[in-house]
């Protein structure tokens, strides 16, 4: 008998008494009762609590703000689907960082990613109550590795994509896509439960919320 059959038989034998399947009571909150402004305020509060840097930026000001954040940076990586106009202010400036585009045709190697200073991505959605930003590998967010290896992650999020509670985000996300949920920069509390921001993941997380 294969291990699979063996285990299946053990399980069925263990359940000989046919325990009943309870109806799951879903009385918890599954939709938001907040206004857009309240959600935005809550998300900012949570992100700041996690020691992320937060910038509220009107859509038209994104290129200038991005150029400002990246001043003095020598190279960045972006996913191929990142809106081109966001990077438009980087090109004219002599001190602008070199921009590497990661695409299905030209995937950056681990060593190349390790050499860049920052990554700029979009985001799929965000949960204000928990301060969580979700990446789902869409073209404006790219492969999981590009938002992991560089030491600084600049994440751009549309205010319209902010939901309040986790169930709302779960309903928006496609399970089959590879996902990374991010709640602040990497952190550890393994030594005397004292929180330290910045371990293996990007040690700096900048979140630009497009208003």
């Amino acid at each position, binding site marked *: 008998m294969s291990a699979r059959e*063996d285990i299946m038989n053990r399980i069925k034998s263990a*359940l000989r008494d046919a325990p009943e399947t309870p109806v*799951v009571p879903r009385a918890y909150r599954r939709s938001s009762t907040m206004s857009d402004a309240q959600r935005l305020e809550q998300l900012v509060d949570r992100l700041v609590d996690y020691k992320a840097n937060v910038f509220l930026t009107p859509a038209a000001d994104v290129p200038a703000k991005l150029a400002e954040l990246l001043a003095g940076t020598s190279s960045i990586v972006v996913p191929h689907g990142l809106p081109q106009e966001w990077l438009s202010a980087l090109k004219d400036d002599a001190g602008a960082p070199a921009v590497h585009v990661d695409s299905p045709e030209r*995937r950056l190697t681990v060593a190349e990613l390790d050499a860049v200073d920052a990554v700029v991505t979009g985001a799929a959605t965000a949960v204000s109550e928990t301060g969580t930003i979700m990446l789902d590998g869409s073209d404006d967010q790219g492969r999981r590795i590009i938002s*992991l290896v560089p030491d600084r992650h600049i994440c751009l999020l549309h205010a319209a994509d902010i939901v309040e509670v986790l169930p709302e985000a779960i309903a928006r996300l496609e399970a089959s896509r590879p996902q990374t949920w991010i709640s602040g920069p990497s952190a*550890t509390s393994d030594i005397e439960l004292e929180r330290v921001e910045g371990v293996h993941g990007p040690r700096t997380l900048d979140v630009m919320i497009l208003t």
Partner: protein
Amino acid sequence: MSNTFLGMPTLPVFGQGNINATESFPQAARRELANTQLRANLGHATHTIRDKRLKVVAELPDWEDMRNAGSAIKDATMANLPALLEQFEANFTARGGIIHWARDAQEANEIVTALIRETGETEVVKVKSMATQEIGLNEYLEEQGIAAYETDLAELIVQLDHDKPSHILVPAIHKNRSQVREIFLREMPVVDPNLTDEPARLAEAARKHLRKKFLSAKVAVSGANFGLADTGTLTVVESEGNGRMCLTLPETLITVMGIEKLLPTWSDLEVFMQLLPRSSTGERMNPYTSLWTGVTPGDGPQNVHLVMLDNGRTAALADEYGRTALNCIRCSACMNVCPVYERTGGHAYGSTYPGPIGAILSPLMTGIKSEENSSLPYASSLCGACFDACPVKINIPEILVHLRGEDVDSKRAKLKVPTQMDLMMKGAQWAFSSGSHLNLLEKGLPLGKLVAGRDKVIKKLPGIAGGWTQSRNIPAPPSQSFRQWWDKEHKPGAAVVPGTTINEGEQA
């Protein structure tokens, strides 16, 4: 597929590996209690995390609703486990993942070893995983000439110190900063000799130590927090980014997951990803959660394996009074609130799974007859703090009592001569199963007064009761019992006056 079982019932098949205590709990506890550094570290850590948990739980108006949902989802999972496993398997496989089944620790270790050998590698990076600790994977791989590097900071500390984890969430909870610094200075091949004991500096040292390993690793081994049956998705919840490194960079990913880790649907994650972070680290959300479904072309490992582990889980499932222990999501809230764990630490439990949940899970998985594990269900004062803290409402005290019953019955069947406890319980049964028996016994109370002597306290009792008088006196009993007073002196309606006491010295 039907869940109805038509074949011959199989006897429970118990698990093996690091879930068998080799020393009885009272004995191990005595040693750990004597370690004052450990007591101080543990007290600080459990109190800190307990307070954080209470704070973030109080934030949510629907916490109890979430616990009720979580508990029901897990009960439903166990009731339909065969069908859900098949559904998960079909979905995970359809997306290019490969599933292996392991009856026990040995089989799981062999499967993982063979998969690593196929890649030609002799090094793997690891994400903290309870399942691989349970089966003793690291030790097995070492025997096979494969080096497994733990990448979670606490696991790294424990591995570098050749120690064992003492807590399932913060495995190095028993070490303080200066101890960690000493371990790093001693064990890291390249380390700044001026390393201070600031946690930020220590974390930085770990980053440098592991960075090259991550960037060059070809094979990673992980556990999984949840497997979602209707989509075939796996989930790893973490903080440091070491999990993301292991799950994203290598070419081959081997995940070991207990068969009970499933949730029926993708949307069930909305309950568990709220319950888990708040219960475990006391955070609104953990910094990183990774989700993957089989293989994603061009993104992450292209060889994705999953080892489905039994190792005694089906034995736990077969126990109708104990099976809800399998609902555990390994948050560790129960140990952080446990007054016993707080004083003994995790090592006293002798298993990968310490604390209140370990005291039921380990004997359920190994069988109560596993000699030293039979002492685990007694490692509790039944105060009930664990049940209140459990995000999936496992009634740990009730299962502890159930397993004590199993232990008593199994020993009764085995031993010809009754133990001291057996005799005490038999005697008490006689006294307590009749008012007149108890009355008869209570007529002897003045004898106790005699034993107590002039200072009206009893300071030493023989045999098993000597455990009590080790640190506690017993007041001299009163001259007569309540029922004797009631029969002789009580006049209905005439209020009894507490000041006019009939007893001497009954208050300690």
